[in-house]
């Protein structure tokens, strides 16, 4: 019995490893270098500039502009962690590989997490570049920042938001495409996650959404880390983010299994 469980674990790890390799190779081959430059350097800059100018135009203080700039630097990871991850199942549909994957006995979670793992690196990089812009172009001071905390929050937020991307990706198994949902959730965090203004500005019914998206905690923790809070001081918000992230990943798994079942039952796997 123990040997059978060990074999399942080893199989899962093998699938995870090969998915990581194929996910990375696939991303590098599929996207052109222009798209990389756009995603890593241009989109974060333009988005941060838009909201920084907007905040500045309402005669907000420099600290308000910095609030917006830091929020957007972190939110831009959604291009990779949410949009790219959410489109994994849709891309498989377009390329005709989804059916082959579904009939394989491979562990689904290992398969999807492996495929999405490259986007963790990408999203961390995108937000790190965003923070560089924040400092050099928008005057955000890092003089009192806890850099260990900053890096830790970047990585944790990338991982948990990747889980959120997987949640949307699972919908793509059943719907014709997850791209529409991916577009919606790419931008919705700008509104509900405290990126540009505190969450309490929102109506209470919308705040519910804020608290189930890990980005809300990541953005808040990043502002605290940059203003000098140490890791022990941040531990509460970091653990909350990890907890919400785990719930989101579990929900993604359950949704994926449900939609896989429904898609098989209704024969919608290849519909796009």
């Amino acid at each position, binding site marked *: 019995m123990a040997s059978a469980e060990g074999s399942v674990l080893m199989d899962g790890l093998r699938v995870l490893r090969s998915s990581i390799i194929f996910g990375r190779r696939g991303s590098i081959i599929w996207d*052109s270098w*222009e*798209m990389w430059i*756009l995603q890593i350097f*241009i*989109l974060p800059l*333009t*988005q941060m*500039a*838009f*909201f920084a*100018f*907007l*905040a*500045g*135009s*309402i005669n*907000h203080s420099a600290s308000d502009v910095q609030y917006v700039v830091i929020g957007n630097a972190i939110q831009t990871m959604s291009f990779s962690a949410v949009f790219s991850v959410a489109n994994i199942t849709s891309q498989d549909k377009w390329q005709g590989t989804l059916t082959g994957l579904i009939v394989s006995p491979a562990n689904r979670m290992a398969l999807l997490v492996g495929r999405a793992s490259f986007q963790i690196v990408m999203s961390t990089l995108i937000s790190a570049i965003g923070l560089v812009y924040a400092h050099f172009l928008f005057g955000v001071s890092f003089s009192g920042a806890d850099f260990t905390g900053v890096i830790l929050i970047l990585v944790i937020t990338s991982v948990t938001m990747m889980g959120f991307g997987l949640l949307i990706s699972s919908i793509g198994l059943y719907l014709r495409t997850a*791209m*529409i949902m991916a*577009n*919606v959730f*790419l*931008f*919705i965090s*700008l*509104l509900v996650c405290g990126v*540009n*203004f505190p969450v309490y*500005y*929102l109506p209470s019914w919308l705040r519910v959404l804020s608290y189930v998206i890990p980005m809300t905690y990541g953005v808040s923790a990043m502002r605290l880390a940059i203003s000098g809070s140490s890791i022990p001081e941040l531990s509460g918000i970091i653990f909350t983010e990890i907890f919400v992230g785990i719930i989101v990943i579990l929900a993604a798994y359950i949704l994926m299994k449900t939609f896989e079942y429904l898609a098989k039952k209704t024969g919608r796997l290849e519909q796009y």
Partner: protein
Amino acid sequence: MISYGSDRNIHRIQAVKASMILTMKNFFADPQWIIPSIIAPFIFTLVSLFLFRNVNGPVLMYAVLGGGMMGMWGTTVYGSGSSIMFDRWNGTMEATLSAPSPLIWIVMGRVIFNTLEGMVNAIFILFIGLMWFRVGVSIYEPLQFSIATILTFVSLSSVGLILSSVYVLTRKAGFLENGLEIPVYIATGTMFPIALLPFYVQGFSFMLGPTWGIDAIRISAIQGYSGFSTGYIPDLVIMCLETAIYFFLSFILFTKVESRAKINGTLGEY
């Protein structure tokens, strides 16, 4: 000769009309694809309105009109790129280019429909903004407002036409449409005065017809609004001149791009 010329014009109008109808049918067959082009303007407008929440009516109206303009821009930028990209995906690119009607007339029909769709988006965004944030609807000069809106619509179509010509040649339409969206919102002063932008960006802003259009729209909609020093009529004249230049450039670009694309033989690549 006269008869030949007039026949040719009729054929061109027929091509534009047929292309518009086909684009409309494609849209209604799968309307979900409108979401990617309106979601960013919609969310950006809502965020802006939350940031503007402590300011008074005219400023909120300024933001709501800017949101509407973003809706029109978003659809123009995405619609122009996607119309060519969908041809590639569906394998209809070669057939479209080998049709007797020059490509520009076919694309013009698509661009006109996309811009019309953008106007519907703009109205939708205006409506949500007005309802959610209870902005008072009072258009200061309704007739001038309507004229400015219609001319801005034409100007946006001309920008869409230029963008489409580039999309015929390149496989990187996705790169361009994603990369251009937010910069055009910034450059045309949709949500904040372009006076805030660095000097070199302002130069680019003034080259975009819709920058003048949104100023004219705001002058006519908001009483006491002080935009560019030029004023309503000069704004429209400059926009019309720039629009004429865009149309002229589009014709030249389409002729060159169409022949180059056929010579390269890489039309269907994506």
